[in-house]
C-alpha cells in the first residue's frame, strides 16, 4: 500500500535549514497496524503528513496505492486523499461549530454524496463507534474519549483504506485511551490499514510492527511478538 524510498524532508526558514526526515525507507502492506515511535522532534509527524498526502517530500519517492505521489499538486493530493485516507489527531480536531453528526458527515460532503447517502453512512459510522445517542451534540459537550470516538467515526465514514493516527490517546486518560486503542484494533481486524504515531509503549503494543525514528532516520523496525505479516 505504501512504499517510501529515500524520503527526505527539509524545512527551511530564512536563516536555518532543518532536516526533518533523512533517507527514510518504509513499506507498509494492506491490513498492517504500524506504530511509529521516537522522541519529540524526530520526524514522526512529518512522516505521517507525507504518508497522508498532506505534504510533499523534499526528495525521494513515495508510492501510495501504486501511484507515485512524491510530487503532486495540492489538488491532486486532495483528490487521492478523499475517501482513501482517514485521519485521527491527538487534539481530535473536530469543528466546534458543527454537531457530532455534521462533523462525521463532512468528508462525504466533499466527496459529493447525496444527502440520503450521507445520512446512512454517517449514522452507520456513529453506530459503529456507539455515538449515535450523541449525534446532535456539539464537540464541547462531549468527554475527550467521546470526541476521539467521533473523530474515528469521521475517519472511517468514507471507508478509508488507510487510517493515520497522530498520538490518538495523547489527550486522554488511560481508560479512555484504552477504549480508543481497542476501537483501532477492531478496525484493523476488519481490514483497515492503520499507521499510528505514539509516545506510549502501551499503545504501540497494539501494533504489529513498530518503527523507531531518531533525528529523521529509521533506526529500528521491530515485529511485535505474536504478530505475523
Amino acid at each position, binding site marked *: 500500500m505504501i512504499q517510501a524510498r529515500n524520503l527526505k524532508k527539509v524545512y527551511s526558514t530564512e536563516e536555518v535549514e532543518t532536516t526533518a526526515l533523512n533517507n527514510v525507507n518504509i513499506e507498509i502492506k494492506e491490513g498492517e497496524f504500524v506504530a511509529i515511535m521516537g522522541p519529540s522532534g524526530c520526524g514522526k509527524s512529518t512522516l505521517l*503528513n507525507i504518508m497522508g498526502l*498532506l*505534504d510533499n517530500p523534499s526528495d525521494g519517492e513515495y508510492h501510495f496505492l501504486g501511484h507515485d505521489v512524491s510530487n503532486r499538486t495540492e*489538488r491532486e493530493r*486532495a483528490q487521492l486523499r478523499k475517501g482513501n485516507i482517514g485521519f485521527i489527531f491527538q487534539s481530535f480536531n473536530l469543528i466546534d461549530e458543527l454537531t457530532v453528526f455534521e462533523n462525521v458527515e*463532512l468528508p462525504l*460532503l*466533499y466527496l459529493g454524496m447525496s444527502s440520503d447517502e450521507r445520512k446512512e453512512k454517517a449514522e452507520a459510522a456513529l453506530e459503529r463507534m456507539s455515538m449515535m445517542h450523541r449525534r446532535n451534540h456539539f464537540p464541547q459537550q462531549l468527554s475527550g474519549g467521546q470526541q476521539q470516538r467521533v473523530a474515528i467515526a469521521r475517519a472511517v465514514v468514507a471507508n478509508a483504506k488507510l487510517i493515520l493516527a497522530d498520538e490518538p490517546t495523547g489527550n486522554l486518560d488511560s481508560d479512555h485511551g484504552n477504549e480508543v486503542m481497542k476501537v483501532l484494533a477492531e478496525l484493523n481486524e476488519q481490514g483497515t490499514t492503520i499507521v499510528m504515531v505514539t509516545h506510549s509503549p502501551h499503545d504501540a503494543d497494539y501494533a504489529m510492527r513498530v518503527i523507531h525514528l531518531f533525528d529523521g532516520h529509521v533506526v529500528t523496525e521491530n515485529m511485535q511478538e505474536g504478530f505475523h505479516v
Partner: protein
Amino acid sequence: MLKNYFKIAFRSFKKNKAYSAINIFGLAIGITSLIFILLFIQDELSYDKFHENKDRLYRVTGSYDRGEQKRVESALTTYQLGPQIDFQFPQVEKAVRISPNNNSNFLINGENIHQENIVFADSGFFDVFSFPLVEGDKKHLFKVANEAVLTQSTAQKMFGDDNPIGSVIEMDGIPITISGIMEDTPSNSHFSASMIISSETIHDQYPSWVRDNWSGTSHYTYILLDKNISPEVFEQELNKYWDSTFKEYGDIAQYAEFSLQPLSKIHLESNLVNEIQANGNLTYVYIFGAIGFIIVVIAAINYMNLATAQSLNRTKEVGIRKVLGAEKGHVKKQFLSESLLISTIAFVVALISVEIIIPFFNQITGKSIDVIFPNDLPLIFVIFASVLVIGLISGGYPSFWLSRLSIIRTLKSNSLGSNRGGELLKRGLVTLQFSISAIVLVSTILISKQIQFVQNKNLGINPEQVLVIPFQNSEIANRFTEIKEELIKESWVSSVTATNNPLPGRITNWRPYRTNGSDENLSIPTIVVHDDFIETIEAEISEGRNFSKDRISDRTNAYLINEAAARFLNLTNPVGSKLVGSTFTGNEWGSKDAEIIGVVKDFHFTSLHDEIQPVVFSLSSEQTTPLNNLAVRVRAEDLETAISGLERTWNTFSNGVPFEYSFLQDDISLLYDAEKKFLQLFSIFTTLAIIISCLGILGLVAFAVNQKMKEIGIRKVLGANVVDIIWAFVKSYSQLIIISNLLAWPIAYVLMKDWLEDFAYRVPISMLEFVIAGAIIFLISIGTISIVAYKAALLNPVKSLKSE
C-alpha cells in the same frame, strides 16, 4: 454543501456575537447611508423629468447690461417676449409666460382666504407642461380672462368637499371662475403652484413698464420647440430678430441677450438672478455622491479587515476541512458565501432602517420621498447588487488567503499569529479609513464655522427686533402714512419705515445716474425708502447726514449712497456732489437732479455669497415707485404684545386681508438654509464615517488582543503592568492615526478652499481646524483601543498562558 456553509456561518455568528454585530452593524450603516444618498441624488436628478415634452421644453433666460461691472443673468424676461416668439417663430410650437404671485387674498363665499404660490399663466400652459388635469379640458382653458385651475389641495382648502367647478371667487375685486382641477404640483418640479390663473386676467393691471417694456424682467418665458430645431440655432435666430427689431425702441432693449435652458437642467444647473424658486446645487449632488461612495468604502474596508482578522481564528477549521477532502475552491466558496450572507443581513437591516428614518430624512432635506419598499424596486435591486459586490470584494481577500494556507501550518496551532501581507494591507486600509474620516471631519468643522460666520457676521445693520410686513396690495400700501402714525403712538414701537425692495434681498431696480459734469450714464441699483429707514435697520451714516423729516427738499433733492456706490462712482468726496438720476412711478419716468447728502456705511442686503452692491437710497415721494414692505423696529421687552398690536393696527387698515409678518433676523437666516441643510446632512454622514471607522478599529484591536493573549501573559509574568500593555497597543495604532491625519489634511484643505470660494465673504482656513479634527479622531480611536486593551491587560496571565 451550501446548506452546510450557511449553517456553519450562522453558528459562527452566534459564537462570535460581538464580532458579527460589529460587522453587520457597520455594514448596515454604510448601506443605509448609501441608500439615502442615492435617494437624495435620484430625487435631485428627477426634477422636471415628468414633463412629456421635456426634451424640447426650454426656459428663455436673459442676460442684461445694467451698467454694473457684470451683466445680470436673470431667469426673467420681458412680458413681450412670449407673444413675440409665438407670433414670429413657427418653429416654436408654443410659448407660455408665467408669473408667480406669492401672496393673494381671495373672497370666497364671503370669506377672505389668503393663498400663496399663485401662478399666472398663458393659455397653452397645460399643453406645454405635463401637470395632469383632474377636471377641465386643457384645449379650452385660459383662452379667456378670469379663469383659474386649482390644485386638489387648494380646492379642498377653499371648497372642502364641494365641487368648485363653475364657482366664482374674487381676487382684489376681480371675479375668477374655477374651470379646472389639477393634481398637486409634484415636489420635483422647479416651480410649484397652488393655483393657476389665466394671464389675461391681470393684463390690464400691469403697469406700463411691464406691458410695454422691451427689456424688462417681469415674466418667466417657456417655449416648446419644434422637434427639428436645435436650441442653439433658435437662440441665434431669436437674438438676431430681437436686436434688429427692437433697437429703435431705445438703447436699452438691445442689451437683452436670450439663452435657452433645457427644463430638466434648471433645478441643478441654473443659478440666475430671480430664480422662480430656490434651486438645488449640482455640486452638492456630486459631494453627496462622493460621500455615499466613501462611506460604503469605509464600511467595506471594515468588513474586510474584521473578516481577515476573524479568519485567523478559523484557520484550524480550514485545516480540518482540507484534511477531510476540501479543496481551495471549497474553502473560497465557503467564506465567500459567509460574506454574502453577512452582507445580505446587513442589507435587510439597512432597508428596515431606511424605512424608519425616511421621515427624519425628509425633514432635514425638505424632500418628500416615500417609503422605498416596494415602491422603488429597481433602486433596491441596484443597491442589493452593489451590496453583493461589496460582499464579494470584501470577503474575497480573507477567503483567498485562507484557501491558500498549508494544511500542516493550520493544524499545528489554533491560530497562525501573523500574516504579514495581510497585516500590511490591514494597516493600510485602517489608515485610509481614518484619512477619510479626518477629511470629512475637517470639512464639517470648516463648513459649520463658515455658516456661523455668515450668520454672525456684522451685517452693518441690526436685524434683531425688526418685523417685516408685506403690504400685499396697493390699497394698504397707499395708507402707509396713516399706519405709521398709528404705530408710532404705541410704546412698543421704536421706529417705522417702508421700502419698495424686500428686505433682505438683492436690489433689482436699476436707475441711470450721472455725476457732476459727466455725460456718461451709470446704472446703479436703487432702493426707495421712507423716513426713518436708517434708524429702523440701525445702519450707520459714515459721512454727511441722514434724510431729515424737517427738510421737505430731501424728498426730491437728496440722495444717500452707500460706500460701494461711492467707489463705483469714483467719488472721493461724495457728500455735496451732484447726482442726476431719474424717478419712475411704475408708469412715468421723471428726472431727479439731486445732491448726495450722506454716505451709508456698507451693509449686506443679501447673503454673503454676494458682494455688497452699490446702492442709491431715494426718499419716497409722489414720483417714486410705490412702497411694498413695512418694517417696524419694536422694543425688546414684549414681542407678543408687539405682534398682536401690529396685527390689530393692520386689521384696521387691511380691509380683511390677513396679517403676514416675518422677523428680519429669520429672513436673513433663511438665506443660508441650503447651507444649513447641507451641513446637517454632512455632519450626520461624518459622524457615521467616524463611527464605522471606530467600529472597525475596535474589532481589529479586539482580535489583535486575542492573538496576543500569550504575549500579554508572558509580559505580565515578566513584570509588565496594565499601563505598559495598553501602551503597547496604543502605540502601534497611534502611528497609523497620525499618518492618516497628515495624509488627510492637504486633501481637506484643497476641498474646503474650493467650497469657500462660493462665498464672497468667508472664514480663513487655519491650522486650528485641522488640529482639532486630528485631536478628535485621535482621542476617539485611542479611547476605543484602550478600552479593549485594558480588559486584556487585566486578565490573569496563568489563564492566557494556558490557553496556548
